[in-house]
Structures are given as C-alpha cells and as structure tokens.
C-alpha cells in the first residue's frame, strides 16, 4: 500500500510563506474545504507524505526529517496517516 496527497488538495507550509519557526502546514480540499491545520510533527508527516510512498517509507522520511528513531514514531505516524486518509486529504493505492 502506498500513500500520497489527494489530487484535490491545496496546501501551503510555513516554508512557502517564509514564516514561523514551528513546522506548520495549512491545507484544504478544493473547492469546498474545510481548512485544516497541521502543526509540529503533524506537518513533518505531511511533508513526508508529499514525497509519497509506503507507510514504512513515510515513517523513514519523517524520522530523517526530525532525527528521531523510526520505531519511536511509527505508531503515531500510522495513526495520523489513517486520520488523513479518513478525511480524504491522503489516498492509499
């Protein structure tokens, strides 16, 4: 199973906005929304999902971004990815 950001999602991160210190992403399904906010490690997982891949690959990318051990974050990443799939902003294929 591979995961990627859904085709109808628009998103922007603080990086795009020359913005704040904490990783933050703002996203929505266009055109009807609602707007969604991902902060901190939630944003890191989102940026990992932007590269797409299996759950293991997403976990590895997120771990590399944060310097964490993959095993220590795998459950949390899996839970968040599941939630993002449920609300339709991430698709599994």
């Amino acid at each position, binding site marked *: 199973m591979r995961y990627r950001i859904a085709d109808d999602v*628009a998103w922007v991160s603080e990086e795009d906005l020359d913005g704040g210190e904490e990783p933050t992403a703002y996203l929505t399904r*266009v055109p009807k*929304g*609602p*707007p*969604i*906010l991902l902060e901190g*490690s939630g944003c890191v*997982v989102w940026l990992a999902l932007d590269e797409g891949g299996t759950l293991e690959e997403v976990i590895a990318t997120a771990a590399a971004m944060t310097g964490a051990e993959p095993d220590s974050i795998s459950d949390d990443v899996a*839970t968040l990815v599941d939630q993002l799939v449920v609300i339709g902003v991430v698709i599994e294929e």
Partner: protein
Amino acid sequence: MGGMSEETDVRAAPVAARVHLAHAVVQKLADDRGIDLLHLKGPAVLPGLRPEGRHSSDVDVLVRPSHLRSLVTAVESVGFEQRTSFATGSVFAHAANWWHDDWGWVDVHMSWPGVTIDAERAYDVLARDRVVRQIAHRDCPVPNRTAQRLILTLHSARSGGTTDLDHAWTAATPEEQDAVRALATELHAEVALAAGIGELELHRGDPTYLLWRHVTRGGSRFDEWRARLAAATTLRAKAELLTAAMRVNRDHLRMELGHAPTRSDIRARQRLRLRRAAGELTSRVRRS
C-alpha cells in the same frame, strides 16, 4: 506527535496562508467550469517582481468578462458573499469583492485600471503569453513577466505610488521597459503607465489626464468627480457618473458600519457628503 485541527484554528492562521489556499479554491472552481481567469498580485507575482517577504491580504483575479457570471455563480456556490459591486468597488468601477469566512477577500477584476481597450480583448492580450505558477501546490495561470510588470506599475499608479514600482519598473532593464511600453500601447494604457512612472505631464491633452493626476497626487472629492467626468467620453457615461455622484455608496457604508446600512444611516451619510461638498466648494471659492 502533533495533531490536526480544523476550521477554528486555521481561521487564526496567517493571512498569507489563507490567501494562498483561496487562490487555489478559486482556480479549482474555474477549472471545473471552464472559466478563464488570471491570478494577479500576491503569490501570483513572479520571483523578483516584488519585495521578499511581502504578502497580500486578499486574492486578486482577472476574469474574462464574458465568464464573469459563471465565476460569480461558482464562488457563491461555496459560500463567498458579495460585498461590493462593480459600480461601487472603486473609482474605476473595475472590480467587485467577495468575502468568505475561511478564505477572506477575493477581488474579481473585469478589467485593470488604466487599460482602456475593450475588456474582453484586453483579457486576450494579457492571457496570450500566460505562464503557470504553483500557488498552494496547484497550477494557476498568471500573466507573463512583462504583463506583470505593467499590471504592478499600473497598480502603483492608481495607489498613488507603491514599492511595487521599484521592482516592477525601476529595476527593469531598458529592454524590459520597452516591452512594457509596447504592451501598454497595445492595451491603450499609455497614460496610466505614464502616471506610474512619472511621465504623466506628457499626456496633458488626454481625457484621462485629470483622473490620473487626481489618483497620483490626491485631491478633494470634488476634484475626483471633475476628473471622472472629464474621463467619461460619452454622454451616457457622463450621465451615469453624475447619477452615481448623487448616491451614497451603500457597499462601502456597509463595510464601515459592519452591518447593512439603515435608511437613517444613508440619510446621515448623504447629509455628511453634502456638507463636505459644500465645504470643498467654500474653500475653492476662498482660494479663487
């Protein structure tokens, strides 16, 4: 791990984030309905044409005039509410705006102040060499670099001078400036461009000269209406202007008051306008 939150939190998000997402929302609506539009200003500006770190507080789009009705239907279908009309939105009657609780303001332009050829043809010219820019990771059509330089310079002119001019015009090479002048000629926007770059006095005989002098240098409401009247080239346009001059702008009054104006609000504003006009005339008589 950090979590996710909806609506309530993101409404406190930086305006810049909302603006980026709103551009994407409008583009999706356009894509789904075959509506031609160009994204202007803010995140639509190509690199190097605006100061780093500068952000817009609203979304500006230029729509093909014949597609306006479809765009209005589309934006209102997702909760945007119209707040000003094309007649009252600005001195140039070129734009109207819509508000959305999540996405903020969207300004819809049917033409760009200073461009005087037919608006449909002007859209074709500005869209002819459009390029695609990613906004919120979505493909959005924007004018090419020359057209953006012209648009930003004209915007600076109508705003009485902005820092946009430094990047859009002053920093351009002579060849780039020539390209902007050529585009302005094609769009019959030479007077507005001249107003933006300090050459307005070369156009003293033009019907729009007074209007641009008022816009760039300021003046009283009386001066503004005199300039608008001079720029209106047909009898019908003059009649419409005079009618509008007598009316209170309900859209702006609503924004000032924060609610739909009542009859007494409008009457009070009408009295204020009459007093202001009388004051301006009195000071004019004293000066003369």
